[in-house]
């Protein structure tokens, strides 16, 4: 059942966004996330949404794949919205019923909160959708390199990450085999209430743990046999170079960030005016 599920959310496609350097994507995702917290006006949110749509479009991703990641935080969004809606009590009162008060300010804050969360999660999911786990691990290793100066074992951490990723399909297969083996002996794994089911997992998890340790042991021998730790300066076959498209992507995201900052701190009236122009009486 797990056989063809590729790990994580990666959506394979041949697009310029998929081909960007993983390090650039990691950094730009961070910039985008920070940028979102500076957005204050509806104008700013429209700008963010436009950028997001531009990326989704050039990455040739179906909208559904991005929305799927939003679905995961739906509960959080709803809860945050309800709390915001009823807790903000300043500004003009729109509705008042017993202890429940909804103000104009509250409505605006709530809408902006929802927009912020949805844009944040969709933007962050683009990273996982367009980058393979291996590229992500390599990118993180490369970005963490300066930490080696303060004696963080970056190389070993990177090796652990990539081995963990490498063994996910293997362990999935193993789990399926154990499930089949236990079922063949009469284990019922998918009947009964939640507690019965959790208890039924024990005979699956114990052999899985034991075999994982055995695998780890053998892998350690295999790595030793192939001279792991032979030198302090382990070299890499693949060297990622920053391409023109990486620079271009960086420029786009950084100019977005600059516009957001300018709009917030130097020209707040622009956002307010545009908001008023578009939504007019609604505000």
């Amino acid at each position, binding site marked *: 059942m797990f056989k063809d599920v590729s790990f994580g959310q990666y959506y394979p496609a041949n697009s310029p966004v998929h081909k960007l350097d993983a390090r650039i994507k990691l950094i730009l995702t961070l910039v985008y996330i920070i940028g979102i917290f500076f957005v204050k006006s509806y104008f700013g949110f429209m700008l963010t949404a436009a950028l997001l749509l531009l990326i989704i479009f050039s990455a040739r991703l179906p909208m559904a794949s991005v929305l799927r990641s939003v679905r995961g935080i739906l509960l959080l969004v709803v809860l945050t919205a309800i709390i915001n809606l009823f807790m903000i009590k300043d500004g003009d009162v729109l509705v008042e019923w017993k202890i429940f008060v909804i103000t104009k300010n509250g409505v605006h804050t709530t809408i902006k909160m929802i927009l912020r969360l949805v844009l944040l999660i969709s933007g962050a999911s683009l990273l996982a959708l367009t980058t393979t786990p291996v590229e992500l691990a390599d990118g993180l290793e490369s970005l963490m390199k300066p930490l080696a100066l303060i004696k963080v074992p970056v190389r070993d951490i990177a090796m652990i990450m990539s081995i963990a990723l490498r063994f996910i399909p293997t362990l999935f297969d193993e789990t399926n085999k154990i499930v089949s083996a236990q079922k063949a002996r009469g284990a019922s794994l998918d009947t009964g209430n939640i507690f019965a089911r959790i208890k039924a997992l024990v005979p699956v998890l114990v052999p899985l743990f034991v075999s994982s340790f055995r695998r780890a042991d053998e892998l350690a021998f295999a790595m030793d046999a192939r*001279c792991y730790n032979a030198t302090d300066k382990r070299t890499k076959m693949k060297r990622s170079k920053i391409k023109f498209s990486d620079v271009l992507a960086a420029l786009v995201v950084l100019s977005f960030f600059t516009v957001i900052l300018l709009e917030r701190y130097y020209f707040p009236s622009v956002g307010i005016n545009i908001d008023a122009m578009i939504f007019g009486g609604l505000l």
Partner: protein
Amino acid sequence: MAFIEIKGVSYVYPIREGVSLKAVKNLSLSIEAGEFVALTGMNGSGKSTLAKLLNGLFKPSEGEIMIDGVSTADEDHIFDIRRKVGMVFQNPDNQTVATLIEDDVAFGPENLGLPREEIVQRVNFALEAVGMSEYRTREAAKLSGGQKQRVAIAGVLAMRPDVLILDEATSMLDPAGREEVLDVVRQLNSQGITVINITHNMEEAALAKRVIVMRKGRLAIDGTPSQVFSSSLLQACGLTLPPAAALAKELKESGVDIGAVTTEESFAEGICKLLK
């Protein structure tokens, strides 16, 4: 001096306080460069332990192993020894380090700290040698067992070894996968790489030019396949003859002598000679 010199080697597994297991006992033998050796014996006869002793994964408890004149106990040269004596293990899944095939083959050379161009060159060479070039950007998890073991051999070849040890590397494969791997191994041996194939399968052992049989940690029989198969000790070592040799023996006992038979090919040759 031979390329591999094993001199009075014993190895003791410490199990727990006061309890230990002597897996290899006072073993001495030598293997010349370019030989094709099959190492066989029952479970627990010490053959896998011997393999791990040969590339310094284990250090001898007594005695000494010399690889190309350097002791495996010499910590300063341990990585040099491991590079010279490459090892392919039984379970293909538990020796693949990277997700992509080319990355896995590059693992060894990367560990040696070689320059990038050199690594690329060696990965190309190694994948070519095992006939897996077209799969280089595939995921290792999606290959067949035989293909996975060929990739594992490529991973060793990329380090330019002198000796290739196969530690029951074909035991988890189907007959087709076994053939694939053995073909590659024979080819490498003909190019001068010393091969030590550890196996339970006597038909596979018959393919080697020299068969070493171990029993309870000691050397029991050492000779050509036909010498080993005609040895009276074979049964005591828990081994049975491969079908072709067994049939030839039966025939001989009932009066039809077709000479020394080790493989199906030599059986056929023997029959032909007899018919002439």
